[in-house]
């Protein structure tokens, strides 16, 4: 299928990269020649220099054959107009990135009034929602849900004192089923076998039923106390949305914002959150607000350096956990090394969400990128015609570097063992390294 991506920023780049690996025909339209050239160098895509709302450019990109258009430029209006044009050209699915929250169509009725766009995505809202998930499960570096929320997938760090440290995976016996789907050790991703070991400081990806996850985490020794007090730096749209989500979940939230008028504006909208007007680099101000006793401190300013600095200050004051928004995702590892617990890149998150939506209607239910895009988690529906139907898992010749993480059958979740059988109508999560992801999917869908 032909896919047109408008805008070759970070988001466009990630989406193009993944889609190329999945064998889509990708055409990217980019206004800036410089960026277009960079893209051309790295990816096997067609790049057209020009404005994505010009019909002649769109025709040149082959809009008439395209099945999908993703508009992710910096300009909301360009994105929205491009999508509407694409719909008129007969493109089946359109996705627009929209920064201005006022444009976001919240309910189905609104969307029917605006038929040109199938999916609107707001990077700030996505970021706020993802951070809220991280705060809900404080030990997790990443959280994802599958099978309508019945399966939880966590990225966890093994502490030195954990009972499972230095043990072989096949020795880990527990009443509730779980699966260690991957291990990241020294920045390298391993799909583990039974005889592999789990070491302290390993980052593991664990899959289990959502209801069992708490017990599984205790067994692994990774469970932490639930957070109660959250402080947010930056009262922009992301911070405001995060505060709104958290106060609804009964956290005690404080939000620090420098601009007084912005403070007044968000104080009007928020119910229980305390809005503080001040400068977060002023240590006395932070001390007076008892920052040291906060469970989580989230830095959401647009300035990476400020986020890093304040994270370090509050860590020093005694905050248990810091989460910082990082504009340049390549710095995340670096920032996590110097003391920030979790770095979050809005662009990566947005790309992630868009990909999930793209996969949704092609039998694949959803996809999540793990770590630094080193592996994918895909949710897939098993059809009647699939060659794997009615065969025991241990008899299947599944490609190396991939595995079936869970089976969702008639509202029930199964963490599979070798003797389990796949049936038509099952929804399965497949975990795979990018180079084998496609082979694994093909193997299942036939």
């Amino acid at each position, binding site marked *: 299928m032909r896919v047109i991506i408008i805008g070759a920023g970070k988001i466009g780049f990630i989406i193009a990269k993944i889609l190329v690996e999945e064998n889509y025909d990708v055409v990217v339209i980019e206004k800036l020649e410089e960026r277009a050239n960079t893209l051309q160098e790295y990816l096997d895509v067609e790049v057209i220099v020009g404005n994505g709302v010009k019909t002649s450019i769109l025709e040149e990109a082959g809009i008439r054959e395209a099945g999908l258009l993703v508009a992710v430029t910096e300009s909301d209006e360009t994105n929205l107009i491009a999508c509407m044009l694409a719909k008129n050209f007969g493109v089946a699915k359109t996705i627009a990135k929209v920064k201005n929250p006022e444009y976001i169509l919240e309910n189905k009725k609104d969307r029917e009034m605006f038929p040109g766009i199938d999916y609107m995505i707001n990077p700030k809202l996505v970021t706020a929602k993802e951070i809220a998930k991280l705060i809900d499960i404080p030990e997790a570096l990443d959280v994802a849900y599958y099978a309508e929320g019945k399966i939880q997938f966590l990225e966890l760090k093994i502490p030195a004192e954990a009972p499972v440290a230095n043990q072989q995976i096949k020795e880990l016996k527990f009443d509730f089923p779980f699966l260690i789907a991957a291990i990241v050790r020294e920045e390298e991703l391993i799909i583990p076998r039974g005889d592999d070991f789990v070491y302290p400081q390993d980052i593991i990806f664990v899959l289990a039923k959502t209801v069992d996850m708490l017990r599984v985490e205790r067994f692994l020794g990774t469970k932490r106390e639930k957070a109660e007090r959250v402080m947010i730096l930056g009262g922009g749209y992301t911070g405001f949305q995060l505060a709104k989500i958290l106060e609804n979940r009964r956290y005690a939230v404080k939000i620090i914002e420098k601009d*007084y008028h912005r*403070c*007044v504006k968000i*104080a*009007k*909208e928020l*119910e229980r959150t*305390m*809005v*503080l*007007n*001040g400068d977060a680099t002023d240590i006395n*101000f932070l001390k*007076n*607000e008892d920052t040291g006793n906060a469970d989580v401190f989230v830095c959401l300013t647009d300035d990476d350096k400020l986020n890093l600095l304040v994270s370090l200050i509050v860590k020093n004051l005694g905050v248990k956990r810091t989460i910082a928004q990082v504009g340049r995702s390549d710095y995340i590892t670096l920032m996590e090394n110097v003391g920030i617990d979790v770095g979050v890149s809005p662009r990566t998150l947005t790309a992630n969400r868009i990909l999930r939506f793209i996969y949704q209607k092609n039998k694949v239910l959803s996809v999540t990128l793990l770590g630094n895009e080193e592996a994918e988690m895909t949710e897939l529906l098993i059809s009647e015609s699939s060659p794997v139907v009615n065969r025991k898992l241990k008899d299947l010749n599944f490609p190396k570097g991939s595995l079936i993480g869970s089976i969702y059958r008639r509202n029930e979740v199964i963490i599979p063992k070798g003797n389990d059988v796949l049936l038509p109508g099952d929804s399965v999560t497949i975990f795979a390294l990018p180079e084998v992801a496609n082979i694994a999917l093909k193997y299942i869908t036939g």
Partner: protein
Amino acid sequence: MNYQRIIYSLSIILMIVGLAMLLPLFWSLYYDEYDSYALALSCGITYLIGVIGYKKTKREGNFLSKEIFVIVTLGWLLASLFGSLPYVFTRIFPTYADAFFETMSGFTTTGASVLTDIETLPHGLLFWRSLTQWLGGMGIIVLFIALFPSIGTGGMQMFHAETPGGNFVKKLKPRISETAKILWSIYLLMTVTLAVLLWLLGMPLFDALCHTFGTVATAGFSTKNISIGYYNSAAIQWVITIFMFLAGINFTLYYKAFRTKSLGVYAHNEEFKLYSFFVLVAVFLVVCSNYSGSIATLDDTIREATFQVVSLLTTTGYATVNYNQWSYFAQTVLVVLMFIGGCMGSTGSSIKVGRILVLLKQAKLELVRCFHPHAVLRLKIDGKSIGQDNVINILQFFFLFLAIAALGTMFMTFWGFDFVTSFTATVSCLSNIGPGLALVGPVENFAFLPDVTKYFLSFLMLLGRLEIYTVLVLFLPSFWRKG
């Protein structure tokens, strides 16, 4: 200031008052009593003066803010002056001060009376006395706006200047005259329902109507010397208790509940919840205080406590027992209630539950600010932020209310009355309740007061009914300066 416009509006108000006198005239003719000529004469004079003023003046251009305050305040004053004519012509009262006091007490829904023996009055006068309360309950000006939509943008400001709760009562329809019509319709519906209920419970139709007027307007004039106690019926007392409570709720909520076909609006209205909370707590306290060592049954104690509590909280002022004989604690609970009043946009007066709610919330915010000096705090009611200027308006209202109560008490004690009488009479009139404690208790009346204090208390009633600002603004010298 354009005097043509002012006289034009005041004339319409007089016409309304004049026409309203036809109703008691009907009762007077029906009973064939001596007051019919007085009522007919008052009706003629009032209506005629109204018509002359209306014909001779022209309403040009838009109202200035100043004119609004003059119209509303003078409108109420004129209504009381002309409304007292039937009493004057029948020579019921020894002095004019009495007649004026009784009329102002009616229009402002205070219900404080200078009559020593109510039952000797002819039916026409009794009906007029009750009707003044009904007109004043929802407001003469609101009626004027409902009947004369052509008043235009000035109507909006007049509405705010008169309605209890003022700016805080939201319009129900884009046009203010439509809103006024809806409010009067709800009021009318409530009136008819209660009148029928009382009539079914055995009150004569005449009494039922008069007591309905006193109840839905939260006013408190009765046609009997011992008020509702006369009927000695538990059912009647409960029905009146319920309707006093209903009349103390923001009328716009009824419309919203009707539109949404659900009672959800009440569950989400903080003012209503606080109002109900006050009733429950006060009833509980009074029952506790009265039941211990009493020979009355628990049923009676609860009914009596609920009736007095709701009556004083909604600023009605009906009584079924002489609470002058209650314990000091129970009396103090009632006095505290006098300072609270009904909800905004109801027929109740006093400070209003909505203002108390803002005061309480602001108090909490100020406490939080003590230890979070950098916090940016916004006061919210029903999830909506209340502007700082509105908060200050309410704080200032509270101050003025207390200051006037204090000065009023001082004025009353100057004439030689004891503190409890002076204080409760002042607060009772300022809150448009009616009875107070001691010499002005529920089974007493205001007849013994010197004339000057009667005029003074009448003025307090007007201040209270128009929520202080509307009247007080006329006393500012700069208000009258040109340019």
